[in-house]
């Protein structure tokens, strides 16, 4: 059995009178240590699948097993715990808190985990140093470039040592060169054993992935 087992999941949204099938009977297996890309045009259901894997959303039907646990049947608190302990997110628009420094932004998830301040700061500084921002700890997001901001976000996604790192178009807001730097960083994380799943429609991203799944209209249409 694979580390992540997605079995026949569907996700429907009701928009007024019409029902939109964002996902329609999708099956997917992901092994530990994979670097998976979900490719497809907008509306293909790739982001919906990512959100389901991240516990931000629940499927209308189907099973999602992560390490044997079916997260499709978790309640809100269970999902919050799942997100905190097992998943790290990076977003297209970074989603850093503008009033906080780089260090505080990385500390932020650990606040909700209830870790003591000294431990939080030490770990946040360690991770920021690892992503090459050791000299930018006290900078606010507005004082950092886009690439630096996304590196802060990567550091933040790693603080709780997640099983899976999920990224929704993490290079979408970056120029090619900076995007390439971020992908290189993610690749080296993957080489260190980190399971990574990215959503993208940029073919250049897929070069870094160990596997790419193509999606269209709520179905998986191919793999390479």
């Amino acid at each position, binding site marked *: 059995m694979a580390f992540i087992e997605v079995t026949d999941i569907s996700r429907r949204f009701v928009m007024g009178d019409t029902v939109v099938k964002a996902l329609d009977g999708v099956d997917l297996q992901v092994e530990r240590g994979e670097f998976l890309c979900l490719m497809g045009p907008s509306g293909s259901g790739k982001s919906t699948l990512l959100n389901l894997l991240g516990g931000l959303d629940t499927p209308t039907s189907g099973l999602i097993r992560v390490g044997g646990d079916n997260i499709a049947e978790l309640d*809100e608190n269970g999902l*919050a*715990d799942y*997100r905190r302990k097992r998943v790290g997110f990076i977003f297209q628009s970074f*989603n850093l808190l503008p009033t*906080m420094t780089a260090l505080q932004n990385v500390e932020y998830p650990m606040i*909700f985990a209830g870790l003591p301040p000294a431990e939080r700061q030490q770990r946040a500084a360690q991770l920021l140093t690892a992503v090459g921002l050791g000299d930018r700890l006290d900078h606010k997001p507005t004082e950092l470039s886009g690439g630096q901001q996304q590196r802060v976000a990567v550091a933040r996604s790693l603080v*709780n040592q997640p099983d899976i790192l999920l990224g929704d178009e993490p290079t979408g807001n970056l120029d090619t060169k900076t995007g390439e730097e971020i992908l290189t960083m993610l690749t080296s994380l993957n080489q260190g054993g980190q399971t990574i799943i990215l959503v993208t429609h940029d073919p250049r991203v897929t070069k870094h992935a160990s596997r790419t799944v193509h999606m269209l209209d709520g179905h998986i249409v191919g793999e390479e």
Partner: protein
Amino acid sequence: MRFTDLMQLVISNLRRMVGRVVFTALGVVIGTGAIVILISLGAGLQSSLTSSLESFGAINQITVFSGGGGPQGGSDQALDARAIREFQSIPGVEAVTPRVSIGGTYQLNRLQGGATTYGIAPLAADDLGLAVERGTNRLSRGTIVVGPKVAEQFFDPRRPQTEIEPPDLFGQTLLLQLSRFDPETGAQEDRTVRLRVGGVLEETGGETDFNVYMALDDVEELTAWQQNGVSPRWEQEGYPTLIVITQLDPAIVQSVEGQIADQGYFAFSIGSSLQGLNTFFLIVQAALGGIGAIALLVAAIGIGNTMVMSVMERTREIGLMKAVGAHNRDVLTVFVVEAGIIGVLGGIVGVIAGWLLSLIINVVALAYISAQTAAQGGADPGIDRIAYTPLWLVFFAIGFAFLIGLIAGIFPALRAVQLDPVRALKYE
């Protein structure tokens, strides 16, 4: 989530919107200030009235009158020796003494003075709270104890308009002028009794300052003379007034007074009047506080509005909170506490503002009142404050403002909790 982290998060969130927080808290300032000032006015009025009532006499003394309109009436209800024993057996009663007044004016050399003279049991002065400034309060035959203001009542009858230096009465012999009328001829007969001042009472600010106290036996004898030799036989037929002294507890005063009244006597005490007055003022203060609470309610709506706006503006942040694993409880707590802190800040400033304003009212109003009474030639009204802020009010007002803030924050916080994280993270 740790408490210190929660507070740090809340404070940094509030600092981000400091302008809005100030305006929102201003509503709370007004509401809390209104509560503080209105209740202070009520409490000030209460304390002025209470202290002026208390100056009428000790609060643990019950005055019992004979011939009161009790249900039984009649000779059974005489305040005689038996009644004294009965009253003494009521739990909570410390002492019972008769009190009988006798008319007459006093003379010291060429000066004349008036005072109410009371006959009391010779050893009852301590029970009645009559402490002496000079001499003794023990009454022996032929001696009297005078209140400190009695001397001021003396005047020169040949020049009644002229103010004189009050004589020092202590140790002096005063002449008490009594008169009686022959029942058949109507002819007036005068008598002069020599009385030595054995003690001067401490000033209490109450009616005792103006009284003269004499041994009961002296008063009985003089009354018999006034009644043309007929003894009043108070012990057998009843004293006109008994004073029942109880333990110093308003509840006991009230219970003893009730038991005496139940036996058909007419009883009165400052203590139980105060009790009634306190109840009245409790209602007044609640009503005044209610008016202030309306202002605070409006402020609560302001807090709710600010928080709703804040939740909208921080939608992405809420999405992020959820994405990094914050429980709904954490999200709720952050927003509710933010609202509560706005309430507390407004409450603290409001209490300070209300308290300062009540100080100003005291200065201005008291100056006005004393100017008015002076212009009308009246005496000092003896009011020392118009508004009085009790300590409990300070804590109550701040606590109430906090609570109002928390409650106002619940609805916006629930909206934050209910946000869908996927949409919240993409919110523009």
